[in-house]
C-alpha cells in the first residue's frame, strides 16, 4: 500500500485492474485504492509481470503492506507458493526518499531505538511508518504521527461517504497541524497588473474552439513554474532535516471538492508544457479530483502548490504549506482597480499574488524575487 499523501497510514484495496500473469508497463493502473483523498488509481513504477495478488478487494491495510508481487519480465516465476520473495518489488512505490522503508517491509528499516520501542508499545509495524529522519530513518515523532493517523483511519469494511468526508477532514487537519507545528512560515504579497494577460487571453480564446479555451488560472500556474527556474529552492521537498531540491516542477493545484474539503494533485512537468496542453490536463485533473480517479503519482508528486480562492471573491490568500513542500503560492480574485500607468491613473484588472514559504529553506528576499518574476512573466503572456 503506497503512501499517497503526507499523513496517510492505511488504505482500502477496492479493485484489481490487472490479473496474475498480465504484463505490466510503467504507468499502468494496476489497482484502485480508497484513501482519505478518495479513490486513487495506483500506478506501476516497475515494469514486469503480475505474479501474485496478496491483498483482496475490500481489505484495509496499513501503508507499507505488500499488495501484490511483480516479477521482473525476464526472471522465472517463483518456484513454490511458500517461497518468500524478498527482492520482488512491491506495487506502485512513489519515487520518494524513504520509500524503501515505507513500501518494502522486507528491506532493512532504519529506525531509532527509542522509536522502535515506541512502535512496539503502540503495536505499529515500523515497516508501515514513513521516516522523516536522515536517510528516511524513522524517528519517535514519526511513530506518534502514524499512531494518530491510524486512529483516524481504522481498518474495516468500505465506509460511507460521510465517513470519507470525516476522514478527509482529519487528513487535512493532520497535514495542516503538522505544517504549522514544523514549518516556520513567512508571507509575502504583491499586486500584479493583469491587463496584458487578460487581454491576450480574450483574444486567444476568440480564435480557439470552445473545448480548447483557456482559463486565466493556467497562465498563473505556468508563470509560477517558469519563475521557479529563477528561485529554484522554493521547488523543494523537506526530507528529514534538510530540503531536497527537485528539477521537475510538479505543481499541486488546490481543488475544492463538492461537499467540502480539498485535494491538491499534481500537474506534472508544468514548465516544459505549452498552455494549451496544460489546460487540457488541468480540466482533466479537476474532473477526476471531483469524480474520483486521481492517480497515485498525482498525489505523491507535487513539489509546490498553487491555490486560488478568487472564485469566491477573496482578494488575497495567505495559505498554509502542504508538507513536505516548502512553499505555496496564492492568487486572489482579479479585480478592477485604479492603477498608475505612465504617470496617469487608469482602471486595470489586478490580482494579488501571495507566497507562503518555509523560512528554513528561503528568505524573504528570495521570495520577493520569485513574486517579481511571476509579475514580469505575466506581462508577456504570449511567451508563457
Amino acid at each position: 500500500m503506497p503512501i499517497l499523501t503526507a499523513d496517510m497510514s492505511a488504505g482500502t484495496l477496492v479493485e484489481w485492474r490487472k490479473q496474475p500473469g498480465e504484463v505490466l508497463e510503467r504507468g499502468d493502473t494496476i489497482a484502485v485504492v480508497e484513501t482519505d483523498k478518495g479513490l486513487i488509481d495506483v500506478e506501476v513504477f516497475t515494469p514486469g509481470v503480475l505474479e501474485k495478488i496478496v491483498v483482496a478487494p475490500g481489505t484495509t491495510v496499513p501503508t507499507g503492506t505488500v499488495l501484490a508481487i511483480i516479477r521482473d519480465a525476464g526472471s522465472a516465476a517463483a518456484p513454490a507458493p511458500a517461497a518468500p520473495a524478498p527482492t520482488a518489488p512491491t506495487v506502485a512505490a512513489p519515487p520518494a526518499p524513504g520509500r524503501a522503508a515505507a513500501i518494502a517491509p522486507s528491506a532493512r528499516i532504519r529506525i531509532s531505538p527509542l522509536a522502535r520501542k515506541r512502535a512496539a508499545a503502540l503495536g505499529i509495524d515500523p515497516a508501515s511508518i514513513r521516516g522523516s529522519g536522515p536517510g528516511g530513518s524513522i524517528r519517535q515523532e514519526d511513530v506518534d504521527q502514524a499512531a494518530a493517523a491510524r486512529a483516524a483511519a481504522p481498518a474495516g469494511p468500505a465506509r460511507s461517504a460521510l465517513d470519507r468526508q470525516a476522514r478527509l477532514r482529519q487528513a487535512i487537519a493532520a497535514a495542516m497541524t503538522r505544517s504549522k507545528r514544523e514549518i516556520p512560515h513567512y508571507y509575502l504579497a504583491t499586486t500584479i497588473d493583469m491587463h496584458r494577460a487578460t487581454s491576450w487571453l480574450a483574444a486567444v480564446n476568440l480564435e480557439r474552439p470552445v473545448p480548447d479555451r483557456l482559463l486565466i488560472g493556467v497562465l498563473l500556474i505556468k508563470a509560477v513554474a517558469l519563475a521557479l527556474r529563477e528561485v529554484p529552492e522554493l521547488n523543494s521537498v523537506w526530507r528529514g532535516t534538510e530540503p531536497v531540491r527537485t528539477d521537475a516542477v510538479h505543481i499541486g493545484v488546490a481543488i475544492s471538492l463538492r461537499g467540502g474539503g480539498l485535494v491538491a494533485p499534481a500537474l506534472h512537468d508544468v514548465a516544459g508544457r505549452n498552455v494549451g496542453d496544460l489546460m487540457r490536463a488541468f480540466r482533466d485533473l479537476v474532473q477526476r479530483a471531483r469524480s474520483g480517479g486521481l492517480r497515485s503519482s498525482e498525489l505523491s508528486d507535487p513539489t509546490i502548490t498553487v491555490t486560488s480562492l478568487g472564485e469566491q471573491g477573496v482578494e488575497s490568500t495567505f495559505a498554509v504549506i502542504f508538507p513536505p513542500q516548502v512553499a505555496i503560492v496564492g492568487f486572489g480574485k482579479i479585480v478592477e482597480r485604479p492603477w498608475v500607468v505612465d504617470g496617469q491613473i487608469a482602471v486595470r484588472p489586478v490580482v494579488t499574488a501571495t507566497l507562503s514559504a518555509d523560512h528554513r529553506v528561503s528568505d524573504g528576499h528570495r521570495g520577493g524575487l520569485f513574486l517579481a518574476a511571476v509579475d514580469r512573466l505575466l506581462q508577456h503572456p504570449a511567451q508563457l
Partner: protein
Amino acid sequence: MTRDEIRATVLRTLNEIAPEVAGATLAPDVPFRDQLDMDSMDQLNFVIALHAALHVDIPEADYPKLTTLDACVDYLDLAMG
C-alpha cells in the same frame, strides 16, 4: 428545438456539472452563482457541454448573459434561430 427542450438540455447539463443540486430546486430567475457552487472551470464545462449538445458557439464575451436558467433559455433560443 422548443424552449422547453432547450430548458431541459440546460438543466441536464447543469446537473452533470453540479450534481448536488437537483434541477427541480433551481429557481429559474436567480443567478446560478447564488444557488450552485460553480467556479470558472464549471462555467467552461457548462459552455462546452452546451456546445456539444446544441452546437451553439458561445463567445466568452457572452458568458455574462448565461447567469440564470431563464437567461440561458432566452440566449440559446435566440442563438439557435
